């Protein structure tokens, strides 16, 4: 029930159609293209987190750190290395991915609450580095002075710098590649083993599975994917700022995964869509939007712990 594709063909198909046509239907329903791009980026981030949260059963509450590192990596690459969007994505992904892999090795023996606390605290390390290291990161002012670059492939020119719709499709392509890789990963024997660890860690250990190694690899991969999302986020805003690494964003990403359904592959994307749209909408209506977002957290935990897709599935099988 858990891995990609098992949800049956109609749901993924519907999702892809909706995503492909988003720039056309978003406007008429009161949205705007940049909102769609944001949903894609944060959805990808939540799905990356969910590799760990939903498919390995490990609670990381500091994943914004790797997201933010991806953003800074991409920004610094564009600013100091070369004016190339693909290179920025690559370097951003590597920055967060490597840092995540290193830290993962340090904390992979911890579980449960302890793991959550350590990930929150270490996540904040990178937040403070970004916040304090003025000369490199711009500190509180954020990293600016870079912009995403158009992509030219032979005779083919993609105007993603100036055209919001073109950029949306660029992000959608990146999203599709990343999500495809995730799906392959989860269907592989490695992905199956992660599920086994989630369901019963002790049994997996008795079966001779090197649990720590698996969790570490899952952690590192999850960091790689979320850094990629972070790099895309930097390109979306042409800016990276310390809030990209703050634990409050980690909390947002976790709630997206839970809200959509963390046991399903597409759940986090749905959760991200609902969360982003709701926050965007409510924060335009009232300055007290934080209470509504807080209330959403409380309601989800109390009434929808399996998430929206969890409910749908249960109704489907009932």
């Amino acid at each position, binding site marked *: 029930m858990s891995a990609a594709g098992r949800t049956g063909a109609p749901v993924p198909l519907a999702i892809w159609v909706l995503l492909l046509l988003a720039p056309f239907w978003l406007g008429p329903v009161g949205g705007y293209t940049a*909102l769609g791009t944001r949903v894609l980026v944060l959805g990808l981030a939540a799905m990356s987190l969910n590799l760990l949260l939903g498919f390995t059963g490990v609670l990381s509450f500091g994943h914004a750190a790797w997201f933010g590192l991806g953003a800074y990596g991409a920004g610094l690459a564009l600013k100091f290395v070369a004016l190339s969007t693909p290179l920025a994505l690559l370097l951003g992904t590597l920055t967060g991915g490597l840092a995540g892999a290193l830290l993962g090795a340090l904390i992979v023996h911890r579980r449960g609450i302890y793991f959550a606390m350590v990930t929150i605290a270490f996540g904040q390390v990178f937040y403070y580095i970004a*916040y304090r290291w003025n000369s490199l990161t711009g500190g509180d002012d954020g990293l600016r002075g870079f*912009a995403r670059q158009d992509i030219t492939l032979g005779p083919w020119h993609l105007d993603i710098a100036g055209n919001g719709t073109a950029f949306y499709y660029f992000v959608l392509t990146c999203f599709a590649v990343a999500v495809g890789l995730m799906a392959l990963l989860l269907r592989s024997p490695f992905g199956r083993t992660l599920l086994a660890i989630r369901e019963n860690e002790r049994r997996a250990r008795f079966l001779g599975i090197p649990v720590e190694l698996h969790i570490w690899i899952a952690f590192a991969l999850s960091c790689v994917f979320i850094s990629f999302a972070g790099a895309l986020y930097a390109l979306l805003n042409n800016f990276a700022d310390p809030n990209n690494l703050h634990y409050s964003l980690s909390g947002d990403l976790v709630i997206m995964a839970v809200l959509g359904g963390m046991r399903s592959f597409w759940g986090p994307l749905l959760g991200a869509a609902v969360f982003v749209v709701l926050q965007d909408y409510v924060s335009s209506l009232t300055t007290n939007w934080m209470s509504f977002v807080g209330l959403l957290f409380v309601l989800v935990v109390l009434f929808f712990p399996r998430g929206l897709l969890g409910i749908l599935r249960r109704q489907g099988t009932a």
Partner: protein
Amino acid sequence: MITPDTAGRIGRRSILATAAAAAVAPLGSPFIIAARGETPLRIGMVDPLTGVYAAPARNEVMGAQLAVARINAAGGLLGRQVELLVEDSANDVGTGVQKARKLIERDHVDFMIGDVNSAVAQAIAQVTAENKVLHVVSGGHTDTITGKDCHWNVYRVCNTTRMEANAVSEVLFRKYGRKWHFITPDYAFGHTLQTAIEANLKRLGGIETGAELTPLGTSDFSPYLIKARAANPNVLILLVQGQDMVNCLKQIVQFGINRQIPVAGTQQELESLEGLPPDARIGTWMFEWYWNQPGVPHLPEFVADIRRVNGGKVPTARHWFGYTSVMTFALVAAQEKTTDAVKLAHALGGFELPPEVKLQPNRVTYRAGDHQLMLSAFIGSAQAHGGADPEDLFKMDQVVAGDSVAPPVADTGCTLTWPT
């Protein structure tokens, strides 16, 4: 749209009702009274209504709302009612950019205002420039906004750090002597401000006994204050802002350092003084705008109108920033009879604010070269208790004209590139 709590809850489409309720004095000539019923003219405003800058941001919004109410009460702008759409940037660049795009792409705003946070302001400026929307930065002070990173479509109401430095340096030198010690917030704003003051100090023949770089958000200033006191300067120059300013001043007074070394600095805000216990309201500062200026025309009406929507409290500089930002669009659009961003951006170069808006004695103009408003600096000292009014916490000594303290355009690093 959203409104600060203090102004009550107001629905998105009810701004017109607000205008009537505000019972404002009709404004005269600049606004053309004409037919209603057309689509309203929309001004987008992005400000951090939640987070650490919530207080100044909400005050800016209140000022902007007053401006809109006055314009509509006087018949609107270019024959259309004006609508202010306020969005919360939550002190986050990603959110701020998102909200700016929303206002431009979905709500099709004609003008944009924001943000208190310089980082968000710069990021929004990229978006407005990309989309050719005229933009006034209401409250972000980082020099680069009208310096190295200036844009053809971006004007700024509040001061640059160098203007602040130049406004107070000589006064402080004459008043306190030549040995200065700095308490500087450790980020770009603090660094540029300190550099600017250091240059002035050197020129005046003073010396610097040291500078304490304090991390943004410092709550315990004692390690820095110990070092500063040991250096035995003539004056302690505080460049920290907001909550850091409040904490630093409180601790200076608690430690009794102010009894040995006087305290002074550049920008001080009424929001900060009101957050301090009375005995910690000390020092020589500059205000970017002050509500109690005897003999300035139209000021009493402004103060009275703000008091009405602000729970009886007086306007701060932030109210005036918000008010002036909206009025800037209104005045220039009425003068040029268009909402075309490029034409209006050109027309704003050298544009002078009329007495109804500037609410201060000197000439106040937008400089054409870098799009910086040449507003006056109000220099004086903080006082523990107001005299006639409990909120009169600042004793103004002199008002310095903005164009006399702003560095020449050539030194700002701004090169404007206009769309072709």
